[in-house]
């Protein structure tokens, strides 16, 4: 398939049809920050951190690069005053929940985000959905999912599945940008649903 030439931050970049702007940028070594993106997973578009400006037919608009498909002659800017302002705010909003996440702290430094701007509500989870989607799309187990909606949204292990599958897997733990996942799982397991394999151990 022929290459599509687009412009990212003033550089000509070649990409294949069907690629996203984020993929094209990564291939060219241009870094765009992400939190909910993973190369093995379907684009999710939830953290909005990878937002960029695209110019088409003279019109500039904001799009998220993990979803926006490359087009011929597309002009992309990955940094601007507005983009930085949005990224800063997103990081500040997330740090109300996970102020100690290394990944967020690093990004906060880059964008001048104030970790204490909003009142802390430490739930640790930033709802990037990496664990949920990895379990569903890669492992096809659906042992962890989202429950409820809006500001009450949480991730939750489905005990019946998690008790069977998670002990031997744990592949989602290192994906978690706030490292809250392992703790959450261990807690769930400990409190509610001892697995059959745990029973003899408990009886010892």
């Amino acid at each position, binding site marked *: 398939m022929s290459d599509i030439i687009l412009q990212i931050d003033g550089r000509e970049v070649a990409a294949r049809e069907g690629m996203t702007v984020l993929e094209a940028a990564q291939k060219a070594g241009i870094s765009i920050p992400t939190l909910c993106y993973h190369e093995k997973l379907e684009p*999710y*578009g939830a953290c909005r951190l990878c937002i960029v400006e695209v110019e088409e037919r003279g019109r500039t608009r904001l799009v*998220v690069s993990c*979803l926006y498909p490359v087009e011929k002659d597309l002009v992309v800017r990955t940094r601007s005053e507005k983009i930085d302002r949005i990224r800063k705010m997103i990081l500040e909003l*997330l740090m109300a929940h996970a102020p100690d996440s290394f990944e967020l702290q690093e990004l906060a430094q880059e964008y001048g985000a104030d970790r204490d701007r909003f009142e802390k509500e430490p739930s640790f989870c930033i709802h990037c959905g990496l664990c949920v989607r990895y379990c569903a799309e890669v492992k096809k187990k659906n042992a962890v999912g989202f429950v409820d*909606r809006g500001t*009450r949204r949480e991730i939750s292990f489905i005990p019946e599945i998690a008790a069977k599958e998670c002990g031997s897997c744990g592949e989602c733990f290192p994906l978690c940008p706030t490292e809250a996942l392992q703790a959450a799982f261990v807690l769930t397991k400990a409190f509610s649903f001892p697995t059959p394999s745990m029973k003899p151990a408990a009886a010892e």
Partner: protein
Amino acid sequence: MARINSITELEEVRKSILSSRDSKKPCITICSGSGCHASGSREVALSIEAEIVKQGLSDKVDVKKTGCHGFCERGPIVVIHPEGICYFQVKPGDVPEIVSQTVIEKKVIERLLYTDPNTNEKIVYESEIPFYKNQERLVFGFNSSIDPKSIDDYLAIGGYSALAKVLSQMSPEQVLEEVKRSNLRGRGGGGFPTGRKWGESRNAPGDIKYVIVNADEGDPGAYMDRSLLEGNPHSILEGLTIGAYAVGSHEGYIYVRQEYPLAVENVSIAIKQAEEYGLLGENILGSGFDFTVKVHQGAGAFVCGESSALMTALEGKAGEPRPKYIHTAVKGVWDRPSVLNNVETWANVPLIINKGSDWFTQFGTERSKGTKIFSLVGKITNTGLVEVPMGMSLRDIIYKIGGGIPGGKKFKAVQTGGPSGGCLPEELLDLPVGFDELTQAGSMMGSGGMIVMDEDTCMVDVARYFLEFLTDESCGKCVPCREGIRQMLKILTNITKGKGKEGDIELLEELAEVAREASLCALGRSAPNPFLSTLKYFRDEYEAHVKEKRCPALSCKELIAFYIDPAKCQACGTCARKCPSEAIIGGKNLIHMVDQTKCTKCGTCFEVCPPRFRAVKKISGEPVPDPIPEEARIIVRGGKKNE
């Protein structure tokens, strides 16, 4: 009923229905829409049916339970045909008189008529009542003359003739062209040109395409789609079938909230009837065109009114919007081209086909054609559903049709477009209603909610209310919406509680910008509108709350106090008796006082203080005057002493 196999047969059926009906035969119609149902129309209908039997009139008088007439404020509504005598707020006890006096004797019962509040004149006919007279009820008007559970009633008013015309005389391209020429724009919120949407789907690759009715109406106070689906379901089915023909679709869905049981029931009956008549299913009217419709009940998430979230829900998944830069018209349900239009949009289609796009474009403004149904609610005299030509001013809708603000209060703002819309102030009352006009003013057409607010409404609290609604209803997927509006709600709540800080307004503006620019779907992108529009037009109220800890509308509980004016209190004791928290320091012939430490600010004392005294005052932003000394509380009554 036998299946109708051709257009000729359809016309024969129509003729036989019409010839079996005598237009001079008395008919009592009872509005059985949700509004009238809530005010007791079912009991009235049962009484009417019983009375007809009792008076031995079963063969001589027809009884018809129709859909919503719109004037919900005055329900239950009963209309007696053929004269068209209109009775309001009818109770079962009125029924014997209605039957014997009006139906038999042809006498009008004065007390049940509408009284014009300005002239005190009694009005007999619907068409002369200002509420109806100033409307243009192209889409909604049929509601009052048909039984929504009867396909014959719909056929009697010319139903399915547009479908017959399309199938016999028009190619799909011609249908598309006609809808494009009508400039019909989506009635659900965005105002996207319907013809263009259809065209995108028609041209999109794929053999399987879907057409969908969006009946997931969820704006607080809005019920126009509900009433249309309840009152005239066949008009929506006919529009949908025509759309399917134009797009090349053979499967349709009606996505309706399960909280609308009557709408679900009526549209399900309508589908069954249309299938029996051969107006849905295979080889419709012998044309070779196949089309089936299924009802899908939504589970109550507001965000599912958003097109991609609705389609995700239709696929059986959690209703979350899809983050795609490709129209659902091209890739929608199961990634297939899917045309989603609102209930009212579909209901306009048969009219456009029957009467032509030239007729349709006579109504409305340059860029907004046709009519729009609004749900006029809040602090308004005539609560109800109104259909007006696009371009009518807000003032005419609120005052000419709505009858203005009740209780002698002053108008403050009108909220249009639901939670994604905005509040418009008095100086914009002459704004013509149209998609672009409302958007430019910082609000939006939305699906047609119109909430009127009077001087007692605090605009900061209105913004807080809508943000609270959206915090609950956001799907929670993307950060700017979930976290942004969570913080906005916190700040707004603090402001209404008198805990606002310097810089709060600016922080709200920053959060609003991020939600507007970076959210995934239209819910998040428009969520800041209630805040932004109230800030734009009522900034002084925000500043009063933050800087002076004062609520100018005297509405925010934490910022007001109730105080009894010693010069006016006559120690009647009413407030002391009614106060639920024993916060009134009373006593015989003693000036009453409010114990501020016990007062819960419920406002009872304010409401019960006799109007001739008006001693209870609401104050805000100023200290409550000190209690008066005990000896000064004694009321010396000149008149009584002389006795």
